[in-house]
């Protein structure tokens, strides 16, 4: 009960020797399971149990992936940059609105239900409208991506800014801190884990936004490749494109994970 330590004081790093042991314990079972899965898949495909048209063998997918890497990487560019632009803008707008809403009771009461409303409705249904308004190019995809990635960030920011226990606020008031200093010293550190988890959700949404735009406009991007190969029953190419899209998703995800680590370390060392 008296433990009033700030967050971020997690003891993540175990001893190096045990790290190896723990890693082995954590990594071996899933890797074995994955190997079993892919091995079985390969075997069943080669024996013709799985139709090559519906589910080509992993080796075939890999071959296609390598062969089409040039085209795939080309098409990954608009998807990657579109999603990155989407999440960055969504983060900027979402965090700003979250802070504004948290500091105004009236704004909160007016805007928060609207935000919750947008969280609950299927926003993807609006994709065709965005394309109608902003054309069928890269910009429209980015704008739609901002639109759907924005909400998880706002909600996380608002939740996060309420996360500091009241005792801290009383402490700050007793120390006669200004509201701004209190924000920096207490509110923000408590909010950051929430904000970063909102950003992680936002990253996935931003990718979805761009891919969905590409599905509908069908001009460029990995979404286009996926749809194109599905229509032609080129399942190996389809799986290759999904694989690369996973790569895009992971790359964006790691950017934000790295950012989180840097910010966390910054607060840790103060």
């Amino acid at each position, binding site marked *: 009960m008296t433990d009033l330590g700030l967050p971020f004081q997690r003891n993540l790093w175990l001893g190096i*020797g045990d790290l190896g042991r723990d890693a082995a314990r954590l990594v071996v079972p899933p890797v074995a399971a994955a190997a079993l899965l892919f091995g079985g898949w390969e075997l069943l495909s080669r024996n013709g149990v799985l139709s090559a048209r519906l589910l080509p063998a992993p080796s075939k997918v890999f071959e296609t992936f390598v062969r089409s890497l040039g085209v795939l990487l080309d098409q990954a560019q608009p998807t990657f940059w579109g999603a990155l632009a989407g999440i960055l803008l969504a983060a900027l707008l979402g965090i700003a609105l979250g802070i504004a809403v948290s500091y105004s009771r009236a704004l909160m009461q007016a805007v928060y239900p609207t935000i919750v409303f947008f969280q609950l409705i299927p926003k993807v249904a609006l994709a065709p409208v965005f394309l109608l308004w902003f054309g069928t190019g890269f910009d429209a995809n980015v704008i739609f991506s901002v639109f759907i990635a924005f909400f998880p960030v706002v909600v996380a920011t608002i939740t996060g800014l309420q996360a500091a226990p009241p005792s801290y606020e009383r402490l700050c008031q007793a120390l006669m801190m200004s509201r701004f200093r209190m924000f920096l010293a207490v509110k923000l550190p408590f909010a950051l884990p929430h904000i970063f988890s909102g950003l992680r959700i936002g990253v996935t949404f931003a990718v979805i936004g761009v891919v969905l735009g590409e599905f509908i406009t069908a001009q460029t991007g990995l979404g286009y490749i996926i749809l194109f190969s599905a229509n032609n029953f080129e399942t190996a190419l389809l799986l290759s494109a999904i694989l690369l899209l996973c790569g895009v998703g992971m790359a964006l995800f790691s950017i934000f994970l790295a950012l989180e680590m840097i910010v966390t370390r910054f607060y840790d060392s103060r």
Partner: protein
Amino acid sequence: MNANATLLAAAEVASSAPSPGYVAIDQVRKIYNAGTRHQVEAVAPTSFSVKAGEFVSLLGPSGCGKSTLLMMIAGLEAPTQGSISVAGRAMTSPRAETGIMFQDPTLLPWKSALDNVLFPFRAMNRPVEPEIVERASTLLDHVGLQGFHGHKPRQLSGGMRQRVAICRALVYEPDLLLMDEPFSALDAITRDEMNLVLMKMWEEHHRTAVFVTHSIREAVFLSDRVLVMSRRPGRIIEDVRIPFSRPRGLEIGETIEFNEICGHLRSKIEHRPH
């Protein structure tokens, strides 16, 4: 893992016929994460015994391994070395003859007080006969929860929840009652009340009891014997018989003898140097 220990224990029970006590702990040792950098010896080789019907407290500073020892007696953790037997049988897994209380009441939040008391029967898949419901109600009445049988844990105070937990530990009439700091989360006044309730229930039902605590006064008030444990790795460093007759009232806490015993025990507990 401890197949050897189990075998040894079984052999011992077979050979040394009249077992030394109802609960017999023989050279029990517990090491966590054996063989890694995080190896911790929680309990150093320890032996003691508890007679049938005796109330024994394990007293020691926090983190001294007393709870680990209790969990091993309950069969919830296996000793690294040594053996534990209860009623002449090696304790290798939990048995239905033991009742356990934890530091928190561990009630099911979605069940009423009465249903929580009846929980052991559901857990052990035994039929809940009307006389068992009757027994559970009587227990609740005896700990002062008349009129709260249908309340959910959220509607009860901390002390009331622990009263429900006492009833739950007694309802299936276990021979051995194991309690792991059951009142340490309560305030001092509630704690005194709970000690009285426990005392009353124990005197009525007269089970063998092992009680873990870090409160010296609580241990002296409740017990027939107090065993003092050292800092980690825990071992028994003092075995004190408490002479007060039963039934006891809170007023014995004011006597000189009581306070002398407490002083003696306090001198034995090793304090961490500052």
